[in-house]
Every structure is written in structure tokens, then in C-alpha cells.
């Protein structure tokens, strides 16, 4: 019996993995990239996000926001990735050529310049500010939701957001001045 059939009368309709994937793969990919996963591991982390989604879907509360839920999973996986792999990858990068990132050159060129510039700015933020800035400004999470997700104080969320915004404004001004 399908687990989704349980309690269908009482509960809102639950999404399937396929629906979750279709709706949110772009969001997961973008968030994964902006939170600092290098191109060589981007596919793998996104893949793993949806494996976790698949495994946890039976426990998903359909009265909650699916996007918020997947964003939390993505954020946790990215943080774990960064702890586990980033240092090693940086070391490897010193001695190895860049890993093929799969994309044809044309695809990469085709990505909009504004997106690339924004990604460059975000990469330059420190980890703490980057997380808050991306979750708030790009993923539209509330400050309270970010505080809950990351376990940091809501005032700290606002402090980091304010600092990141100021940096971003300076970045924009410098760009426009060129």
C-alpha cells in the first residue's frame, strides 16, 4: 500500500519525489551553488539532496512549505559537504587542474552575466554572511525561519544580513562606476 494513501482524507495532498524534483531542482541547484559548492561536486550534492528528500518524503508534513523543507535539507547537506570536502578540494586544487565541469563552453558563456557577477559577489562573502544573505535575499526565507534553520539568534541573522547588504551595495556601486 502506498504510504501516500495513508490518511488521504484528513491530510493535505503530499508531493511525490518526482513533483518535488520538478518543482525544486532549479532552486536546489542554485542554492547549492551559491552556498559555495564547487562545480565539480554540484551534481553530486544536488543528487544527494533528492536522495534525502526521497527518503524523508513519507515524514514530510504537507501542511508545511515544501520549498522551505527542501531548502533546509539542501542547506544541511551543503554545510556537511563544506565541512567534509571543501578543505580537501582546496588542497587538491593547488596541485591538480580544474575538474571538468561537464558543461560545454557555450553553456557556461550563455549564463547571464548578472548571475555570474552575483555568484562572484556571494563567493566573496564570508561563510556566515553568505548563508544568511542567500537564504534571505535569494530564497526568500524569513529571518525567523533562517534563525530556526541555522540555529543562530535572530538578531545575529539581521546583523549579518545588514552587513552583507552593505557589502552588496558597495559591490553594485563599484560595478556601475566602471
Amino acid at each position, binding site marked *: 500500500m*502506498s*504510504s*501516500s494513501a495513508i490518511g488521504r482524507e484528513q491530510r493535505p*495532498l*503530499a*508531493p*511525490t*519525489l*518526482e*513533483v518535488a524534483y*520538478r*518543482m525544486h531542482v*532549479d*532552486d536546489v*541547484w*542554485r542554492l547549492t551553488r*551559491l552556498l559555495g559548492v564547487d562545480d565539480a561536486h*554540484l*551534481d*553530486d*550534492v*544536488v*543528487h*544527494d539532496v*533528492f*536522495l*534525502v528528500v*526521497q527518503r*524523508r518524503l513519507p515524514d514530510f508534513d504537507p*501542511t*508545511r*512549505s*515544501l*520549498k522551505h523543507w527542501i531548502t533546509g*535539507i539542501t542547506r*544541511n*547537506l551543503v*554545510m*556537511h*559537504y563544506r565541512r*567534509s*570536502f571543501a578543505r580537501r578540494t582546496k588542497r587538491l586544487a593547488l596541485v591538480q587542474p580544474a575538474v571538468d565541469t561537464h*558543461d560545454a563552453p557555450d*553553456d557556461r558563456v550563455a*549564463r*547571464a552575466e*548578472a548571475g555570474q*557577477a*552575483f*555568484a562572484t559577489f556571494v563567493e566573496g562573502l564570508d561563510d556566515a554572511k553568505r548563508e544568511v544573505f542567500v537564504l534571505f535575499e*535569494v530564497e*526568500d*526565507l*524569513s*529571518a*525567523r525561519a533562517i534563525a*530556526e534553520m541555522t540555529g543562530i539568534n535572530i538578531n545575529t541573522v539581521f546583523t549579518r544580513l545588514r552587513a552583507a*547588504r552593505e557589502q552588496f*551595495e558597495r559591490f*553594485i556601486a563599484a560595478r556601475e562606476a566602471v
Partner: protein
Amino acid sequence: MKDLSPSARTMIDEARRSLRPTDGDRRRIADALARSAATGAGPRLPQLVDAGEPADSAETPSRRRTVVVMTAVAVVLGLAAMAMMWWGPMGLRVWAASASPEDAAAYESRSPAPEGSAVEREPPPTRSPATPQVEPALVEAEVPEVPEVPEAEVPTEVLPEEPAEVATTGSARARAGRPSRPAAGGLAAELALLERARAAMSSGRHGEVVRLVKRYRAAHPKGSFSEEAAALRVLALCESKRQGAQKAALAFAKRYPASLTMPRIRASCDL
């Protein structure tokens, strides 16, 4: 807190729209997921799989295995279908329509916003208007399997209303809050039927699968998911040991030799 300047806001909006995976990215990930689901393989980054789990997760290994088995069929077929959608111009059109941002808008609109969003955001966001709380407008998979209803009775309000002409990111379009346009092409009805068949398949109701595929073919003789429907039918026939199953499987293999469901069909039908 001081709000972002218009040019800063514009750049974020543009970044949100442009930072997205290519079709090749999506296809690779969908393929990998389909393989993982089919083989029960673990994560591609082995240390990561539990990172998304809450520390107090009550999930047991046996439950996890059960969940994986129960969803494997749906996942393989679903992701195979998605992968197919990304191949070729027709596939792209189907993707754009079937995975339209309105899906996301519809789902999100029936779900509560993340706690406190739009209330405590500071300053008041101008780009994320509150989404109207409307009835579910998605999740074809959950259209009740029984009793069966004719296509005409599939409630139109549960179907995505707007095919996307461009596959922009769901969230961006959802945030834009564009008004819906009338449905076009009956793609949502197709998907609804197919999802019902898939649900029946994953529940082992093979007879129902065959009936639903028959209805699908009658209602959508040139349907966008003919291959997936055929695959479901063949699997249902084979797994229920019905007469003519192998013949149907051979016919499927001949017609769709590159189908992503072929490994499963070969296994189920002893090809």
C-alpha cells in the same frame, strides 16, 4: 533596516532567473537519481547522506529499506520520464509545460509560507507578495485511485492551469504572481492519468494499471507520455504474469529500444 537599492534588487532577480542548471545538468542528475533508485545505490558523496536528517530521526533501517522499495518503481519511472522529457525539442516543450512554474506556485500557494515570512521580513519585501490560499492545484499523483472517474470528472481545479512558454525557475515565476491562463493541451489531464497508473503500479494493482493505460490511450492517442504509459502497461502485464506479457514487452523493446525503463522491463519480463 535599509532596503536594497533598485539596482541591487534587480541584480538579485536576474541572478535568480539566470542561475539555474542547464538541460544537461538536469538530465545528468535525473539519470543518476533514476540509477540510484533502481539499484538502491547510496549517495554519490557517501558521507553526506545523513547530513539532512534530524539528529533525533526515528527512522529505522528497515523502514528506510521499505520506503526505498516502495518508491523505487515510481521513482524509476518518474525520473525516466523526466529524463526523456529533456531529450529533444518535444521533450523540452513537454518539460516546460508539465513542470511549469505554476506547479510550484500552486503547491506553494496551498502550503503555508515559511514561518513568519512576509510578516517579519525587514523591510517589507516588495518582490514576494503573499500568495493566495487557494485549493490544491497540483499533485496529480494523489488523485484518488478508486473509485475510478471518467476524465471529464477530473476536477479542473486540481490541474496546473498554465503551460509555461519558457522554463524559467519556478520560484521566480511564482513570486511574480502572474495570473493564470486557461489550460492548454490537456497535458495536466495526461499527467493525472499517468500518475494514477503509476500509483496503481506501485501498489501492485496491475489490473488497474492496464485499465488506466487503456483509458490514457483512448483519451490521448497522441499523448506526450505514450512511452511511459506503454512501459507501465508492459510492467503490469509481466508482473501479473498475464498472457501475452512477453509479446508486449518485445513490442515495447522494439519500439522504444532506448527507453530508460528497459532494464526493469527486461528483468520483469525475462527478456
